[in-house]
């Protein structure tokens, strides 16, 4: 690419080979070799204006009719493409900015210009879902860009706008009220675990990322109510913390333990809690305390907004090593591709939404962008395209659950209008005795 005048190649950036290296996805858009070909609006005209406005550093774009202040359906019908063309334009710009910021054709200058343009066009308070989501993405890319200019760091991500713990907790709970996305993972896993350990006296759960421990009260309650007064099942949870996430994560894991212990006591569930500190990203099963006759369950919730950095290598190590424990069940909950836009759409408008978007989605998007960018740039870091696939080809076999839609299924997927949001699947080690 010509470094002297980046704009020469701008069309190339936007319209061409985004699909060449990319996988041909099932999205129809991809099949048609880029979004552009299906659009029947005047590319040249708009595009030209776009470039013009960027080069002249004008504040507003003039190629689209002004969006009327009262955004009713009626008005929208007069300008049927107004909202969506802006949305598409935003996506194009984001894609261009992302590509400009990483990979072999990295150009700082172009990235900066694109990001500035995007910032102009977006705000977290915009009207449409796409615009707001684009604002979050712009933010995330900007952070990356800033950090890249300073120094590439793979460590825990510091957000300039760090929200305090209460805000985060509150937003998290609001999100749980607004969408079944989070609880779907928890409760489906709980049910699968109950099924797997039905006849076990002792249950040992190894939790990859316990967070506040919110997943477990429902399991405890189910165990208590399932006990017919004979001998109660004993529950043990070992929670992992990783050194890369710092002292705060250690404290959080310990706090979760205290809470869960208190809760278990309040409902009369025999319970004990252990904290396993990982010094590096490699998991060592021998650091776990095991008890004879207990059924081991590996719990891997990958769908939550991970505000702390957890590289794929760490998870891979965890799963691989945990297999040697001969677990009765491995629970895997992970996001589906295209989650962000789908979940944005699936959330109903309500007054709390802006708060949740700021506190949770912003950092979530940033974290995701960081992970992806690091993977894209750093040849050392591996990426896993699909966790179920990884499990299936690394010594795990699917475990059938009774509450699935079809006979023989090992999981469920939560979707929104045919877009997949989050998937819960269940596995066991191939070598386990059945």
């Amino acid at each position, binding site marked *: 690419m010509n470094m002297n005048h980046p704009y020469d190649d701008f069309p190339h950036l936007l319209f061409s080979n985004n699909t060449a290296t990319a996988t041909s996805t*099932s999205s129809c858009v991809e099949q048609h070799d880029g979004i552009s070909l299906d659009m029947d609006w005047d590319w040249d005209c708009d595009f030209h204006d776009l470039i013009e406005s960027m080069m002249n550093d004008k504040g507003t774009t003039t190629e689209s009719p002004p969006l009327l202040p009262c955004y009713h359906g009626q008005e929208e019908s007069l300008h049927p493409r107004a909202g969506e063309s802006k949305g598409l334009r935003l996506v194009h710009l984001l894609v261009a900015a992302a590509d400009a910021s990483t990979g072999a054709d990295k150009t700082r200058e172009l990235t900066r210009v694109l990001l500035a343009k995007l910032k102009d066009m977006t705000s977290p308070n915009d009207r*449409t*879902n796409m615009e707001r989501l684009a604002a979050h993405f712009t933010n995330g890319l900007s952070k990356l860009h800033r950090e890249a200019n300073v120094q590439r760091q793979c460590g825990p991500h510091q957000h300039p706008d760090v929200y305090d713990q209460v805000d985060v907790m509150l937003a998290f709970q609001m999100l749980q009220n607004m969408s079944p996305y989070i609880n779907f993972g928890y409760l489906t896993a709980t049910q699968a675990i109950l099924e797997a350990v039905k006849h076990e006296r002792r249950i040992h759960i190894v939790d990859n990322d316990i967070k506040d421990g919110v997943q477990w009260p429902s399991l405890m309650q189910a165990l208590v109510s399932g006990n017919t007064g004979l001998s109660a099942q004993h529950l043990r949870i070992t929670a992992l913390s990783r050194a890369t996430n710092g002292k705060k994560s250690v404290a959080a894991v310990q706090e979760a333990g205290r809470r869960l212990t208190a809760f278990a006591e309040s409902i009369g569930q025999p319970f004990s809690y252990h904290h396993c500190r990982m010094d590096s990203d490699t998991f060592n099963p021998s650091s776990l305390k095991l008890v004879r006759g207990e059924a081991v369950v590996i719990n891997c919730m990958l769908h939550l907004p991970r505000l702390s950095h957890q590289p794929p290598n760490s998870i891979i190590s965890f799963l691989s090593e945990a297999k040697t424990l001969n677990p009765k069940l491995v629970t895997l909950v992970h996001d589906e591709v295209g989650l962000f*836009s789908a979940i944005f759409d699936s959330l*109903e408008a309500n007054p709390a939404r802006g708060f949740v978007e700021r506190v949770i989605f912003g950092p979530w998007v940033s974290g995701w962008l960081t992970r992806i960018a690091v993977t894209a740039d750093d*040849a050392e870091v591996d990426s896993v395209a*699909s966790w179920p696939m990884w499990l299936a080809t690394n010594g795990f076999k699917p475990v059938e659950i009774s509450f699935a839609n079809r006979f023989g299924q*090992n999981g469920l997927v939560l979707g929104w209008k045919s*877009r997949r949001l989050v998937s819960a699947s269940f596995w066991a080690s191939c070598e386990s005795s059945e």
Partner: protein
Amino acid sequence: MFHAKKPSSMNGSYENRAMCVQGDSGLVLTTDPKPRLRWTVELHERFVDAVAQLGGPDKATPKTIMRVMGVKGLTLYHLKSHLQKFRLGKQPHKEYGDHSTKEGSRASAMDIQRNVASSSGMMSRNMNEMQMEVQRRLHEQLEVQRHLQLRIEAQGKYMQSILERACQTLAGENMAAASGGGFKGNLGSSSLSAAMGPHPLSFPPFQDLNIYGNTTDQVLDHHNFHNQNIENHYTANNAADTNIYLGKKRPNPSFGNDIRKELLMWSNQDHEPIDDEHRIQIQMATHVSTDLDSLSEIYDKKPGLSGDEGNDCGKLLERSSPRRSPLSPMMNPNAGLVQGRNSPFE
């Protein structure tokens, strides 16, 4: 002296009767101390005929039946009890079991009903069974919902307790700090509970939430399809611990493409039409009222606000790909973007 009393079984089947006497009128009476009328096939058929003529068992009365049947010796008492039994439909007389061939010769619907019901008993039994099955399933579902509700409540209690604790800690630390967000700082436990719940549920209309199946095969196909450029190394050998992952390093990492996929991802199942039978509607809630009957109210779509949201992220894709192959019926065919947010009730 023993007075041998002949045991007379008053409530046995008619087959136990030692002797029957046929009277002139054609009635068969038993010979035990209390003569009881034996409802033979023929008599019963006449009865059924009469009832049919009179407009059915509900309209016919013993008196009118008696008159219509014109059988001597038949008392109101006999008819009353027989009619009652007939109405209840609980008397598949054994005699009738052998006379299913009579079906064809009788035109009356009552007759057919009686014969069919009594001859095999299967249809009524099947319907009963089905009814019981349905009831059983409903009951089961209610049980499941109740269990789920208990679990969710447990989770809610736990969350509330940690939130309260965190708030108190924060309030203790930052007594004077002015906070940026609107939700912290002044939160006392009262406003906390006001903020937290029980929230009116604002889930998306639940018809739009779906649960799909997810077998490994499906996963493999699905991912195979849309990751075609990624080499898939399957190692059946589990011991081979070389780091061969799917999605291994792409030669030209495409960060932008990931973003595009995230923002515009269409259904990944374009080529796997989603059968309706494999979808179940999700009915999960974090705050569920104790009255299960009101569950249905919770899922009503909230009008108003959502309609003003304007474009969905996903709709952009609808608009831009008019040549999309016809998809599963779940996709809203509403190509016009005028209304804004899709409503399942439109």
